[in-house]
């Protein structure tokens, strides 16, 4: 299973790699990292249908996570991948907006990896 992680915080990569150490080692999950919305879109273009799950931050300079979400959900991807939004602002408005745009789930920072792992299991 391929998971695309989008965040402008570069340290998100070592964090995910360590958190999913066992899964990566076992070849269960393959992580791809993008540091902006634009990068994420080009990444999706390159590896069509491969990414099953997209984890995206909402607050990013340039294209925000919500814009990315609407791009992914309203455009070309068939079948559309599962998109989970992650944000430091766990407020209702962000949640509502994300759900309206077709987000599959919503997580608040700091990320609770145990529950994230559970959610990944249910989605896949």
């Amino acid at each position, binding site marked *: 299973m391929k998971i695309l992680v989008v965040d402008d*915080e570069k*340290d998100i990569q*070592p*964090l995910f790699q*360590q*958190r999913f*150490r066992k899964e990566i080692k076992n070849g269960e999950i393959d992580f791809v990292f993008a540091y902006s919305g634009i990068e994420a879109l080009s990444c999706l273009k390159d590896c069509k249908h491969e990414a099953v799950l997209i984890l995206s931050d909402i*607050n990013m*300079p*340039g*294209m*925000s996570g*919500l*814009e990315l979400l609407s791009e992914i959900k309203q455009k070309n991807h068939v079948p559309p991948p599962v998109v989970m939004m992650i944000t*430091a*602002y766990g407020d209702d*408005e*962000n949640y509502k*907006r994300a759900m309206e745009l077709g987000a599959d789930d919503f997580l608040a*920072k*700091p*990320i609770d*990896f145990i529950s994230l792992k559970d959610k990944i299991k249910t989605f896949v």
Partner: protein
Amino acid sequence: MMRYILLLVFIVSNVQLMGQKGNTNLIRQIDSLKQELVKPQPDSIKAEIHSRITINYMHINPDSSKYYGENAIKFFEKTKNFRQQVFITGHMMETNIKLGNLPMALELGLSILPLIEGRGVYKSGVSPIYDNLGLIYHYLGDNEKSIQYYRMMLIRGDVDIRGVAFGYFGMAVVYESINKLDSALICLDKSHDAFYEGNHSTNYEDINWDKPYQYKVYPAWYNLRAKVYLKQNKPELALADLRETLNTTLNSKEVFHTSNTYNDISALYKTLNKSDSSIYYAEKGIEEANKISYISGILDGSKILAEYYESIDPQKALKYFKLTSETEKKLYGAGNMQVMKDMIAQSDKKQVEIEAAKDKYQNRLRMNAIMGIAFTLLVIAIFLFINSRRKQKAKLKIEKAYDLLKSTQSQLIQSEKMASLGELTAGIAHEIQNPLNFVNNFSEVSVDLVEEMREEMATGNTDEVDVLSNDLKQNLEKISHHGKRASSIVIGMLEHSRASDGKRELTDINTLADEYLRLAYHGLRAKDKSFNADFKTAFDDELPKISVVPQDIGRVLLNLINNAFYACTERSRTSTEQSRTSTERSRSADENDYKPLVSVITLKEEDKIIIKVRDNGNGIPESIKDKIFQPFFTTKPTGQGTGLGLSLSYDIIKAHGGSLELNTEKNVGTEFIITFPYQEITKE
């Protein structure tokens, strides 16, 4: 002696007819004038009529003349015809003198004198008054005062040449009487010259003197010179002069001259011991004088005759003694003398009083002037005092207002600070949550790694232990890094809200700018969900640390960056609105592709440190470009901006010795440029 005639023909023609016939004629004229008075007449005409009646009555009824004269004076006074008032007074004086009524003449003179002197500038026309007064005092034997009055005529003579002539003549009379013959002759010469000049003066307009004289010089002038010659023992010259007078006056209308001359000739013959001639001329003198009741003429003649007849004809002598004493009594009667002395004493007293009053008046004037000045000074002083009080009050008011303004300003600055802090809080939350995410997760995952490492150590898999320990080390570094990041944000927040202590510190502008750029971005994101913009930094890595007050400069950067983001969102908002309302479906490519971007650039030029904050918004319109640094100027909707941001920023940069400028272009964007002089800003 002298004549002052206005109605020359009218009067003089009647003087000659002083008999019964003359009187009836005069009375007829007076009656017709009285008829005129019965009719309603204006005061000026009434004055004129009274004046004429006065003159007509002069010789036939002195009391009536006095009555009408007084009325004439009143009317002239009423109509403010001072010239005529003086004229009729002079006339009445002379009449009274000739009639022997010296007290009345003196009274008239003394009554008009203060009026004349009160006028001060009144010059012409008053000479006859002085002339008559001089004569009266001469009769009274006060020659000093007499000369004084005659001199007055000389002073006023600049406009009254005949007055000068009579003035000198009067003085000559006095000098002759006290045997100052040389002085008398000098005065006579001057008098002669003045008469001559007066006769040839073409613009001679004085109504108060008889004009034109039918003789070159006043006839009595020769009589007087004859007297002097006689005293100088020159009887031939004296006689020649007297004959000259007689020739000019014998058939003239002025009878008294003739009378005088006869008497003078009589006196001359007396000194020459020619009794018959003397008696003859004395009798002729009295005869002429009688025609006009000329007292002086009668007196002079009767004196001579009384003396002559004393030894020859006692009866005649007695007659003339009686005549002499009667006329003398008329002139110098004991009663008269007493009256006049009283009058003069009173006048002198009055004069003294007038002088005293004048002094008093002067003093009062001086006093008033002093009081006036004092009052003015007082007013000025009060004015100045009030003014200074008002100023003082105004100053206090201004100071109060200034203090209020100051405190309001500091409150505003504080509220501006808190407002920007409020904008920051959301950003701060995000900026803290993110590092906390790493701190929490890296530490949690590290616990797992340690657990794993133990397992590997137990199995003796040293390679795996090595990898794990490296990861652990890396994680701990990450934890430390993100912990510091969070703490610096908290410190920055505290610093921002804290009142600036104004202490300069060597500050890394790149770090500061980056920090505030992120804070601003996330703050705006937190506030406005639809907001998004890209930001970019172009930092000069070689940029030296500069000595600034970090909180202050941070505030400036935050403000400029916030404004930049605001400008971008404004443009993107307006452009999407435009495209939505556009009837054409085809969106303008330019607007569709609009990507909001804020850049912060630092660079070092030769002697400058430059910080630029750039946006690609709509640009600032030329019309408000000059205003944006003014306090309270804002383009934001009410309640959204304090209008102090740029104004405070400007002041802060100025206080650091730098400058804050801007470049702006419509639909391209705006660039704020902070420039610090390198030398100053790098000093510690």
